[in-house]
């Protein structure tokens, strides 16, 4: 089996909790508890959980925005925490991220062209004319017209902004894409289009995809494998159809029935 692109090894993350008059540390909040998972090349994995289960914390750990309090995150076998300089930049090219809030994840003062050029500049991937060509290429891959290069985020719709966010993430040609609730803030139809876009990238470019969402329906439509998270722990992981038809954990069953809006099967409390 091919080496996983991203791997979490017994990763834990806790945050200190302050309280009292003197704001001393009175305890810790365990956001993620000894969680292990892998993302193999080319596969689409979904991570489902409700708010507060730690999935966004896990996403930030996998991309290096947070450091784990225990365990380690490996990018192509290399421990992310120990990478520096050139090797860190290489890791950044390999695994990229799509944020939830399309408006918040774009610099409001930068045009689409500047936003898309940034990864090219940081990683010295293209200069001058080649860069402009690459920007146009990226816009085309997310089905945005080339004229959009001069627009500011406030001149784009929610779906268009998210497409720019995806294009930016694709600029370095990553092998894996981590998406944190990418369609949560979007309309149903726009969200469906973005899902379709992600699906085509995953299939055509053989790009690994980690799709994090609270919406089991979206995850089920896109991913081959689904992992269920609850209170910082990985509860269950199985291929999509197996999980949907034969859930092992009662919480998974609850999530499935809730996603179907089965009003009578769900018990109170």
């Amino acid at each position, binding site marked *: 089996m091919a080496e996983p692109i991203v791997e979490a090894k017994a990763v834990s993350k806790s945050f200190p909790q302050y309280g009292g008059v003197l704001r001393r540390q009175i305890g810790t909040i365990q956001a993620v508890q000894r969680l292990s998972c892998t993302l193999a090349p080319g596969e689409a994995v979904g991570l489902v959980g*409700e708010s507060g289960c730690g999935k966004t914390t896990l996403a930030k750990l996998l991309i290096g925005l947070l450091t784990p309090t225990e365990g380690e995150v490996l990018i192509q076998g290399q421990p992310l925490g120990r990478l520096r300089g050139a090797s860190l930049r290489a890791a950044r090219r390999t695994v990229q991220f799509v944020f939830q809030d399309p408006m918040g994840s774009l610099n409001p003062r930068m045009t689409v062209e500047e936003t898309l050029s940034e990864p090219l500049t940081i990683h010295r991937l293209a200069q001058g004319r080649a860069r402009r060509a690459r920007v146009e290429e990226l816009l085309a891959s997310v089905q945005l017209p080339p004229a959009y290069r001069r627009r500011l985020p406030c001149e784009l719709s929610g779906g268009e902004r998210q497409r720019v966010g995806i294009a930016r993430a694709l600029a370095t040609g990553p092998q894996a894409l981590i998406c944190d609730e990418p369609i949560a803030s979007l309309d149903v139809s726009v969200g469906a289009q973005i899902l379709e876009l992600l699906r085509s990238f995953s299939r055509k470019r053989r790009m690994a995809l980690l799709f994090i969402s609270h919406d*089991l329906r979206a995850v089920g439509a896109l991913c081959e494998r689904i992992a269920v998270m609850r209170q910082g722990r990985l509860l269950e992981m199985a291929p999509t159809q197996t999980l949907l038809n034969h859930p092992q954990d009662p919480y998974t069953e609850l999530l499935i029935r809730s996603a179907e809006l089965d009003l009578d099967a769900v018990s109170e409390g």
Partner: protein
Amino acid sequence: MPLLTVEDLTVTYRHHGTSVRAVDGISFTIGSGEILALVGESGSGKSSAALALAKLLPSPPAEVSGQVMMERVHPHTNIFGVGVNLLSASEEALRAIRGGKIAYVFQDPATSLNPVLTIGEQLREAIELHTGARGEEATRVVVEWLQRVGITSAKERLSAYPHEFSVGMQQRVCLAMAMATQPSLLIADEPTTALDVTIQVQILRLMRDLQRAFRLSVLLISHDLTVVERIAHRVAVMSQGKLVEIGPVAQVLGHPVHPCTKALLACRSAVALRRAGRADG
């Protein structure tokens, strides 16, 4: 006889010389004890229409025209009285109606609840404003309603502040506040969109049960067709300010006529939960 008859409702926003028609001459009715769902893309005008019904849109920049006839229903005998056009009623009459005969529940409970008042105080305020209950009587009604919406140890929690509750609980409190004044019409604008999926189901079931128990009319705004299918009796589809299709849920969702309806349904099946034997298509 319908509870609410909306005729040719139009909402225009004027700002610095430009004007946008958010709602373009829509007409529909809501019967007594019926749940009408209003669906459409964002920007289709559904929220503007809902707020316009009780003249809740700030008057510049919004201009509302049309007729919104509401029949007066006697709370105990369900006898219809003489209708009143909400759009031409006096501000005083409207204040009695808003929160009283017409109650609203919005998407984000955190912004609907006053963070500096306890929930007991807020509920009591609503009850005292719209019903005859006062003091002890009002408190009793408050506790009763909190229990009905599923908040345990209601009496002890009267002095709790909104931020001490989870989002799901806050939405239950908002429902209690809406229902406590015994409204004839409940307008719910995306009431479950901001909630976790397991809580969503609980709130929807609560709404359905309350609606059945009190023969409430509900105008439910949602972008989620599955919600509509589970709860609503009739559905109206809006697109760019116009009402493009309206009818019983089974008919509209089963045999859509308008391309917008078909598009919404297509998105739904694209994201459907395909389970063997329980396909949600």
